[in-house]
């Protein structure tokens, strides 16, 4: 599918070689960070924290040795005034030195001493090796240690925290660092659908992290799943809450919830009238009895449709027909009702005219030829009629004509005399050939030809 690619292509093309000019100070920020980084990383030929540590160690050792020599000769005669200051500094250096030394590998230590040696303390460095090791065991804050090499005071303060931090910052660029400590579980999920019509099948898509066991609870349905990503079908309308509890092996839990709304479904119901209509001929009224319906689609079964709620339809062909009413609720939920074989008997019909003009030339006996357009005999048009009984009454209710033959109608004469023009009542009873009985009545106007 070509369309699928459009967004990806759009973004890929637009951002191909995309440039943004960095702000002015960014390079100096990089340099500052670099300096710190380089200072914390060992590299021969560049002053860094390891050299500083080495210098400090050497300084302390030299001073210690010097002091020992000194005290051996003169005893511990140190000026009282300088002790306080020296003590403080020594404390500071002692701790920072220890931290720095801990982080070093043996090799680096060796190198440090070699370097120290080459920096002009050959006599002190070499024999001091053992002493220096001893010295590390000694408690810090010993009195009467001379101040370290000049110029090291300020950076030493900074080193207190940096070597630790440096480990964090050190990340290899070609791999993504993995989380060392085991994180707590995070319950998270997604619903394939959050609202819809019943039956609503919802995929509960688990997006939790760092968890091993899951428990899904759907309220108020009272359903529980323990699969990772289950599927559930909501049948009843309502508002549901889905809870996901994610657990890890240690039993830490995390809970996440979301809601699902299942809309109510409409109910399609209809009726029609008249039931005994003659099809094709009569107009049929269809009545909507649906519940919660907002939109309608009627399909009358003859290829015609309507979107009215209560349409009137006139068939042009014989039945039977399957009539379908489809309704939609405001939320777009759908339901439909089908009536099959409506007007199954529409092939049988019986229709009477409401006026006729008798032949003034005398009684004809009422026999007529089918298909004749002469309207001088009152008779029905019919199809499929079996038993048949037609009666005609005058306004006083007197029977003036009667026939049990379909092909014999009323010619408008009573006992040989032309009947009075006016309205007469007719009644027809019988059964269609399919056995369905009928009773019809109506009136007909007798018009005298002038």
């Amino acid at each position, binding site marked *: 599918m070509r369309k699928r690619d459009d967004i990806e292509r759009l*973004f890929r093309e637009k951002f191909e070689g*995309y440039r943004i000019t960095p702000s002015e100070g960014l*390079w100096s*920020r*990089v*340099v500052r960070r670099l300096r710190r*980084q380089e200072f914390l990383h060992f590299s021969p030929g560049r002053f860094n924290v390891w050299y500083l540590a080495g210098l400090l160690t050497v300084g302390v050792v030299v001073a210690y040795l010097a002091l020992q020599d000194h005290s051996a000769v003169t005893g511990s005669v140190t000026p009282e005034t300088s002790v306080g200051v020296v003590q403080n500094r020594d404390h500071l250096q002692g701790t920072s030195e220890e931290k720095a030394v801990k982080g070093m590998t043996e090799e680096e230590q060796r190198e440090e001493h070699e370097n120290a040696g080459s920096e002009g303390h050959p006599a002190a460095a070499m024999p001091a090796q053992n002493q220096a090791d001893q010295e590390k065991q000694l408690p810090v804050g010993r009195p009467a240690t001379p101040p370290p090499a000049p110029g090291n005071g300020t950076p030493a303060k900074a080193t207190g925290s940096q070597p630790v931090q440096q480990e964090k910052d050190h990340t290899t660029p070609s791999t993504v660092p993995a989380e060392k400590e085991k994180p707590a579980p995070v319950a998270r999920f997604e619903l394939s659908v959050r609202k819809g019509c019943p039956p609503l099948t919802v995929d509960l898509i688990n997006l939790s992290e760092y968890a091993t066991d899951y428990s899904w609870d759907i309220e108020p349905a009272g359903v529980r799943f323990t699969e990772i990503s289950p599927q559930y079908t909501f049948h009843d309308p309502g508002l549901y809450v889905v809870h996901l509890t994610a657990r890890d092996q240690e039993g830490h839990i995390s809970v996440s919830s979301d809601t699902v709304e299942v809309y109510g479904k409409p109910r399609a119901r209809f009726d029609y009238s008249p039931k005994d209509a003659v099809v094709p001929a009569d107009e049929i009224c269809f009545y909507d009895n649906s519940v919660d319906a907002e939109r309608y689609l009627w399909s009358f079964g003859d290829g015609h449709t309507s979107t009215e709620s209560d349409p009137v339809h006139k068939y042009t062909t014989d039945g039977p027909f399957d009539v379908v009413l489809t309704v939609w609720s405001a939320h777009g939920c759908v339901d439909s009702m089908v009536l099959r074989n409506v007007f199954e008997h529409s092939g049988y019909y019986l229709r009477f005219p409401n006026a006729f003009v008798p032949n003034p030339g005398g009684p004809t006996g009422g026999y007529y030829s089918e298909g004749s357009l002469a309207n001088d005999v009152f008779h029905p048009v019919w199809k499929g009629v079996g038993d048949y009984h037609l009666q005609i009454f005058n306004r006083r209710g007197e029977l003036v004509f009667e026939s049990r033959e379909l092909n014999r109608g009323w010619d408008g004469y009573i006992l040989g005399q032309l009947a009075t023009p006016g309205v007469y009542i007719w009644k027809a009873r019988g059964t269609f050939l399919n056995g369905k009985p009928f009773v019809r009545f109506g009136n007909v106007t007798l018009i005298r030809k002038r």
Partner: protein
Amino acid sequence: MYTDEDLIKGCIRKERGAQKALYERYADRLLGICARYAADTAEAEDILQEGFVKIFVHISDFSAKGSLFNWMRKVMINTAITMYHKTLRHRYHQEIEALQAPARDEMPGSSDFTQEELLAVIRSLPEGYRVIFNLYAIEGFKHREIAEMLGIDVNTSKSQYSRARRFIRKKLEDISRIAVPDEKKRDEEA
């Protein structure tokens, strides 16, 4: 004019001049990549800065087999992911709200979006979705690779990507709907 190789050699020797030249040669293009991963320009520059420090510190690890730019690009992306992981805890529960899928899966209106508009769209994505969208749609990684990089499940990558994609589509539709005629834009600028 130095070649990349000259600059790499200089950078391995930790020469500040070579580092600066490398920075000046590639910073704008790399920032263009970082920008897509960041919520704003300041964050993008943070990524760029950290990335360049890594590049200079580890330049000796760069094997001349691949292109230098691609290697640097990878470093930037990894830096962006590292940053994302650092902020993960605080922002993870951010969600794309009220995201209704548009009815049709077709491209909204015109494709004449500006880079700025597209950048704004990307930046409006919640962080996790933004990273996945960048990695999959633009960088062209596979979901399996993304899952590995981010330490998530493959299906999570897929489902988050499709949500991001839906979100972006909707945003693009919104943009094309409210697109201002050019004259009006010019008037405003004047």
